[in-house]
């Protein structure tokens, strides 16, 4: 394992999990890890370790430290939001939040039906309910994704726009059993949520939770489109947290967007 490549990976990881933090905090963490990498390499040279062994140890230090990095990041996020900030909202943000809650509730109900009734959730007396839920939730997710892009268009970066677009497309596909296109929904919404966290609309904890739930949803989705679609039912429970995380996002939007008090203009949601 090449230590240079692992070092690049580590720096990229540091850049990723410190995204959205104050510049000084990011620079300090980056410098501290850079110094560690430099010392580790010089130590390996001194004791005559092979570059392969060094690269492997760096990789293990990276992987085993990820939970610590994330919890450190979440602790910083919580600290950043609490002091001196108030939650402001607008009618449009409340509407988007409500749509997210409804869409999440729709999918949650649908998945519970599928967990209880299996394939027969689409037939008999329950069939029409399932169809209404899949259509309603699909459209609501689509509207939520588009609404979020529209509402925060001035502050979103490219990943947010692309993610929102993917999520909207995937959600629309989900309403019509759109095969592989449905996977765009979790992939896109994770990117969108992260960008919303970067600009302070969501907490990083919420965005991270949503990304993990999106990753879990991919398992039954991939299984559903694999050679044995019936296998997807075995993984259905993994899909359940995803709509719940959408509901959490919706509730957060309805409550309002954290923003500094009137003396600073950052993060204002155009309160009404």
């Amino acid at each position, binding site marked *: 394992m090449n230590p240079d490549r692992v070092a690049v990976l*580590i720096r990229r990881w540091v850049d990723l999990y410190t995204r959205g933090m104050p510049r000084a905090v990011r620079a*300090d*963490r980056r*410098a*501290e*890890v*850079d*110094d*560690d990498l*430099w*010392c*580790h390499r010089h*130590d390996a040279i001194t004791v005559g370790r092979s570059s392969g062994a060094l690269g492997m*140890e760096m990789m*293990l*230090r*990276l*992987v*085993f*430290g*990820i*939970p*610590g*990095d*994330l*919890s*450190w990041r979440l602790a910083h996020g919580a600290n950043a939001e609490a002091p001196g900030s108030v939650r402001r909202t607008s009618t449009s943000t409340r509407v988007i939040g409500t749509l997210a809650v409804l869409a999440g509730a729709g999918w949650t109900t649908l998945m519970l039906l599928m967990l209880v009734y299996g394939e027969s959730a689409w037939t008999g007396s329950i069939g029409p309910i399932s169809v209404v839920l899949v259509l309603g939730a699909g459209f609501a997710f689509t509207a939520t994704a588009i609404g979020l892009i529209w509402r925060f268009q001035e502050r979103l970066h490219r990943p947010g726009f692309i993610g929102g677009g993917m999520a909207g497309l995937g959600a629309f596909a989900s309403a019509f059993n759109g095969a592989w296109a449905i996977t765009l929904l979790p992939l896109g919404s994770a990117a969108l949520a992260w960008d919303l966290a970067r600009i302070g609309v969501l907490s990083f904890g919420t965005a991270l939770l949503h990304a993990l739930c999106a990753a879990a949803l991919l398992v039954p989705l991939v299984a559903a489109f694999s050679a044995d679609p019936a296998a997807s039912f075995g993984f259905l429970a993994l899909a359940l947290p995803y709509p719940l995380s959408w509901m959490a996002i919706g509730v957060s939007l309805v409550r309002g967007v954290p923003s500094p008090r009137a003396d600073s203009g950052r993060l204002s949601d155009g309160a009404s």
Partner: protein
Amino acid sequence: MRRKEGVLVPLEVSILEAAVELRSRGVAEAHGFMLAKAMRDRQQARRLTAYGTLYKALYRLERAGHLTSRWEDPRIGASEGRPRRRLYRVTLVGEGALERALEGRRTPTAPRAAAVQLS
């Protein structure tokens, strides 16, 4: 599981022990890698503590007042061709916490050998 405030976990005890030992050898301030290496040597472990685990623990120890840190003069790092360096030093509070943690480990009635309630 959420940990209690004011409780030193084994990793934090190890960091403080390493810092105190380094100080006894004339190194009053140590950077992250130096602490990780001292911990590995003390425990005769095969690997160094992971980045995220180590720096999160250092952050927590500093917030609790067990360590203080300062950034080294960047000119020193530049002259040696390396990045700037953060140096940690054990405080009196940290020494006291370490003593109590070690005492707790030795006390058989302690609820957990590895975690000791401070103050």
